[in-house]
C-alpha cells in the first residue's frame, strides 16, 4: 500500500518541479508605439485542423483562413464588401455580363485558366467552389496575353464578380504534376503575402512573410495557427495569453466579458456578420401552404423577449432575406409584431376552432399539430423552440420539437419530408437570394427547400441578378424584401452577433460590414504588434 501512495506523490512533485510560470502579457500605452511596426508573431486559433492546403479543394472555413495568407484572391473585398483589385489589377465586364476581362501582373493568365479548369472539373470533387463557377464557359474563356484573360460565362449574372474572391490562382507548372487531390494537402505554392514554414497535422501551421511579395507588405512577420477544436479550451488558452484571438460564446461573453482583470489585456468585440436564423416552413404542407397561417404563427414569436432574456441584447430581430448591413436591405419593412390574440383571430377566421373543447384548435376533425425539426445540441435552437412551443400552446397549437443531428435534419428538409425546421444561413457577400427562393430552385437543383413559388418573386429575383447597376439592383431587392416579408416563406427571427476576444497587443484589428475580422482587405493583413509586446516570437527551427 505504501508503494501506491509514494507513486502518487512523486507524480505530483514532478509536475510542480518543472513548472515554468508564464506571466500574463501586459499592455503598454506609451505614445510612440501608435504607428504600425513590422515584425512579430500573431497566434491565431483554428477551430479544427485544415483538410488541405490546396485552395481549389478548400472545404471548411479553417482551410480558407489559412489560404487567405498564402494566396491573394483575384478580387478582394473592402470593408463594405465591395469588390476591389486583388491579384487582378483591373477588370472589365462585357455589356451582356458574360465576359470578364482581367489584367494581372504577377501570375500568368495561363495559371488562371488552369485554376478555373480544375475548379469546374467534377473529378476535383470541390462542390462548393465549383458551384460558384457553375456557369463558366470554356469555349469563350481564353488567354489574351500572359497578363490578360477573358473569362466567359454561359449566363451573365451580377453576383458572379463576388465569386472571383473564391478564385485563388495556383501555378500550373507545380499543380499540373502529381495527384492533384492528395499531393498538395501539406505543401503549397501561392502568390500571397505569406509562405508556409511548416504544418504539423492536428496541431499547428506556421506561416512567414514573403520578402519578395509583389503587393503591399503586411506588418506581421509570422502567423502561427493553433488547432483548438473545443471552445472552452480555446477560451482558457486565451486567458493564459497562449492565443491572440478566438470566437467566444454568448455565455462566456456575459459571464467573463466584464471582468476588469481580463479587460486589461483582452479586447471584447461584438458585431454582426452575414447570417440569420429562420423557421423554414414547408410551403407544400397542406396546413402551412397558407401564408395567412404562417403569418399568424409568426405573431406568436416574442422576439423582444428572446433577445432580452436569451441573448441579453446581443442579437437583433430580422424581417427578411437581407441583414441591415447589406445594401439590399429595405429599412421600411416591419418586423412582425408579437400578438397572439391577433394570431388567434386570424386562425379562427381560417376555420381553426376548438370544436371538441380539448384545448387544441381543430378543423375538419383534425387538431392543429405541427412538427418542428431543430439541430440537436444547438445552443440557438433549443431555447427558441421551447419558447415558441409554449407560446403556441397558449393559443391551442401543439408544436412537437424534434432534435436531429445536422446531416439527418438537412436530409429530411431537402427531401421535403418535414413541416417546419429552425435553421440558419451564412450568406455570400453578394445579396442575391436566387438559390433560396426562385421556383426553379427546388432541391436537388437548388436550395429552395421550402418549395416557395411566386411568379412576382421569380421576376424580381431574375431582375436582381441580371442587373449590373447597384442602384437599380437595390430597388429591385428592396421590393423583393417587402414581398418575401409579406409571403413568409421563412419566418426570419434573429441575427445573433458574433463575439470575439482579441489580445490587446494586436493592433488595428478592424471588422468589415458583415464579413467580420477576416478575409477582407486589409482585414487580418493590416494587423501589427508593438515591438515591446512580441511575446510569442520563439526561435524557429525547420523540420
Amino acid at each position, binding site marked *: *500500500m505504501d*508503494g*501506491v501512495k509514494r*507513486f*502518487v506523490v512523486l507524480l505530483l512533485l*514532478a*509536475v*510542480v518541479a*518543472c*513548472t515554468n*510560470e508564464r506571466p500574463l502579457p501586459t499592455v503598454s500605452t506609451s505614445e510612440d508605439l501608435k504607428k504600425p511596426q513590422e515584425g512579430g508573431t500573431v497566434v491565431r486559433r483554428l477551430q*479544427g485542423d485544415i*483538410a*488541405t492546403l490546396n485552395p481549389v*479543394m478548400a*472545404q471548411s472555413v479553417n482551410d480558407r483562413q489559412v489560404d487567405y495568407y498564402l494566396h491573394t484572391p483575384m478580387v478582394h473585398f473592402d470593408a463594405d464588401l465591395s469588390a476591389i483589385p486583388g491579384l487582378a489589377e483591373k477588370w472589365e465586364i462585357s455589356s451582356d455580363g458574360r465576359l470578364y476581362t482581367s489584367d494581372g501582373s504577377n501570375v500568368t493568365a495561363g495559371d488562371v485558366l488552369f485554376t478555373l479548369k480544375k475548379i469546374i472539373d*467534377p473529378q476535383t470533387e*470541390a*462542390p*462548393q*467552389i*465549383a*458551384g*460558384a463557377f*457553375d456557369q463558366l464557359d470554356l469555349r469563350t474563356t481564353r488567354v489574351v496575353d500572359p497578363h490578360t484573360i477573358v473569362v466567359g460565362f454561359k449566363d451573365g449574372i451580377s453576383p458572379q464578380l463576388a*465569386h472571383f474572391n473564391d478564385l485563388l490562382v495556383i501555378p500550373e507548372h507545380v499543380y499540373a504534376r502529381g495527384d492533384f*487531390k*492528395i499531393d498538395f*494537402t501539406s505543401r503549397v505554392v501561392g502568390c500571397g503575402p505569406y509562405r508556409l514554414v511548416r504544418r504539423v*497535422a*492536428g*496541431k499547428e501551421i506556421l506561416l512567414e512573410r514573403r520578402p519578395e511579395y509583389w503587393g503591399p507588405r503586411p506588418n506581421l512577420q509570422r502567423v*502561427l495557427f493553433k*488547432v*483548438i*477544436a*473545443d471552445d*472552452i*479550451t480555446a477560451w*482558457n*488558452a486565451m486567458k*493564459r495569453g*497562449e492565443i491572440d484571438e478566438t470566437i467566444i460564446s454568448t455565455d462566456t461573453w456575459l459571464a467573463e466579458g466584464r471582468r476588469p482583470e481580463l479587460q486589461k489585456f483582452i479586447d471584447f468585440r461584438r458585431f454582426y456578420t452575414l447570417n440569420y436564423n429562420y423557421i423554414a416552413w414547408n410551403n407544400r404542407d397542406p396546413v402551412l401552404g397558407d401564408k395567412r397561417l404562417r403569418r399568424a404563427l409568426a405573431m406568436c414569436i416574442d422576439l423582444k423577449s428572446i433577445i432580452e432574456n436569451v441573448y441579453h441584447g446581443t442579437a437583433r430581430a430580422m424581417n427578411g432575406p437581407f441583414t441591415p448591413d447589406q445594401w439590399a436591405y429595405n429599412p421600411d419593412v416591419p418586423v412582425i409584431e408579437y400578438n397572439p390574440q391577433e394570431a388567434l383571430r386570424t386562425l379562427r377566421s381560417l376555420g381553426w376552432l376548438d370544436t371538441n373543447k380539448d384545448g387544441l384548435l381543430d378543423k375538419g376533425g383534425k387538431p392543429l399539430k405541427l412538427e418542428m425539426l431543430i439541430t440537436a445540441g444547438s445552443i440557438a435552437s433549443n431555447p427558441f423552440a421551447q419558447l415558441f412551443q409554449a407560446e403556441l400552446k397558449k393559443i391551442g397549437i401543439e408544436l412537437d420539437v424534434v432534435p436531429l*443531428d*445536422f*446531416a*439527418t435534419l*438537412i*436530409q*429530411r428538409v*431537402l427531401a421535403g419530408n418535414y413541416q417546419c425546421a429552425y435553421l440558419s*444561413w*451564412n*450568406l*455570400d457577400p453578394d445579396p442575391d*437570394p436566387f438559390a*433560396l427562393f426562385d421556383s426553379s430552385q427546388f432541391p436537388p437543383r437548388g*436550395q429552395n427547400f421550402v418549395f416557395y413559388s411566386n411568379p412576382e418573386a421569380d421576376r424580381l429575383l431574375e431582375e436582381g441578378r441580371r442587373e449590373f447597376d447597384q442602384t437599380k439592383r437595390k430597388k429591385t431587392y428592396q421590393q423583393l424584401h417587402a414581398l418575401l416579408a409579406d409571403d413568409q416563406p421563412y419566418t426570419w427571427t434573429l441575427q445573433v452577433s458574433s463575439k470575439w476576444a482579441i489580445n490587446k497587443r494586436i493592433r488595428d484589428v478592424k471588422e468589415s460590414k458583415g464579413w467580420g475580422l477576416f478575409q477582407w482587405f486589409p482585414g487580418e493583413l493590416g494587423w501589427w504588434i508593438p515591438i515591446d509586446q512580441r511575446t*510569442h516570437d*520563439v526561435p524557429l527551427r525547420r523540420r
Partner: protein
Amino acid sequence: MTSYVVRRLLYAVLTFIGITIAVFALVHAVPGDPITFYIGAHGAHNLSQPTLEAIRHEYHLDEPLVTQYLYWLRGVLRLDFGTSVVDHRYVTTRILEKLPNSVELNLIAFLVAAAIGVPIGLWSATRSGRPIERASAVLFFLLYSLPSFWVALLLMELFSVKLGLLPTFGMTSDEYLDLSAGQKLIDHARHLVLPVITLSYAQIAIFARFSKSALTEVIRQDYITTARAKGVAPRGVLWRHAFRNALIPLITLLGLTIPTLLSVGVITEQIFQWDGIGRLYFVSILTRDYPTVLGLTVVTAVVTLFASLLADILYAMADPRVRFEETAP
C-alpha cells in the same frame, strides 16, 4: 492450450465479420451522407451538381448497399480502407498518424488506473464492512458517476488557468522542437497529466470495486478456511492463498476496459486537443466521412477483440480449469 487459442481466434474472426456488417449497416442507416456535409458550409449559393455526382460515383454512393459493402470488404481484406471523403488521403494513413497518440494516452491511463485501483480494492477487501471501507465505496461510486467532460474542464480551470502548473491543451509546447531530449520528455509528460487523470479516475473506481469483490469472493472459499484451520497466519492466508486467485477475474477487466477508454477518449481528446483517433472519429461522424468512420471502427474492433482474446488466454494460463470448462466465448 494451442487448440484453445486457435478456437478463440476463430471466434474472434467470426465476431469481427459480424461487427463489420453491423457497423456498415448502422453507418448507412443514419440519414444523411457525405454530400449533406457540404450544404450551407460555405454560403447560401448552390453546389455544383456534376461535382456531387462525381463524388457519389467515386465512393459508390450511387450503388446498392450490399454492393457498397462488398466493395468495402474487398478493400478491408487487402488492408485498404479507401480514401477519406474530406481530404482524399488514404484512411489507413490518416489512422496510423493518430493511432500512436491514442494508444500512448490510453495505455498510460490504464496502467495508472490499475496501479492505483487494484491495491485500493485489495485493501478495502480486508476491511470489508467497516465504516472506512463503506465510505471509500461511496467515494468511488461518486467518482465513477462524475461526467468526464466536466471533470476535464474543472481540472483545466484549476491546474492550468488558476494555478498555471500545467499546460492547457495539446501534446507538446510551442518550443518543443528546440528542446533537448530530456526536456522534450518532461514537456510531453506535463501535457499528459490532465488527460490521463480524466481518463483514469473512473477506471480507478472500477478496478477498486472489482478487485475488492474478487478478493471477498475468494476469502469465502473452503480452501481459505482450510488454510486458516491448519494454522497459517492471517497475513499469509491473504497474500499466499487468496491474493493470487483473486487476481484472475481482474484479467477479464483488461478486455472490458479498452472499449470504455476508447469511448471516453473521444471527449478527452476533444477537450485537451490530444491529436488521437477519438477526435478523428468525432469529426468523421459529423461529416459522414464513411470510409474513415468504418476504418476507425475496424481498428477499434480489432483492438477490443485482441484485448479480450488476450484476456481469455491469460485467464487460461492463470487458471488451468478454464481450458476444459470453456466451450463457447
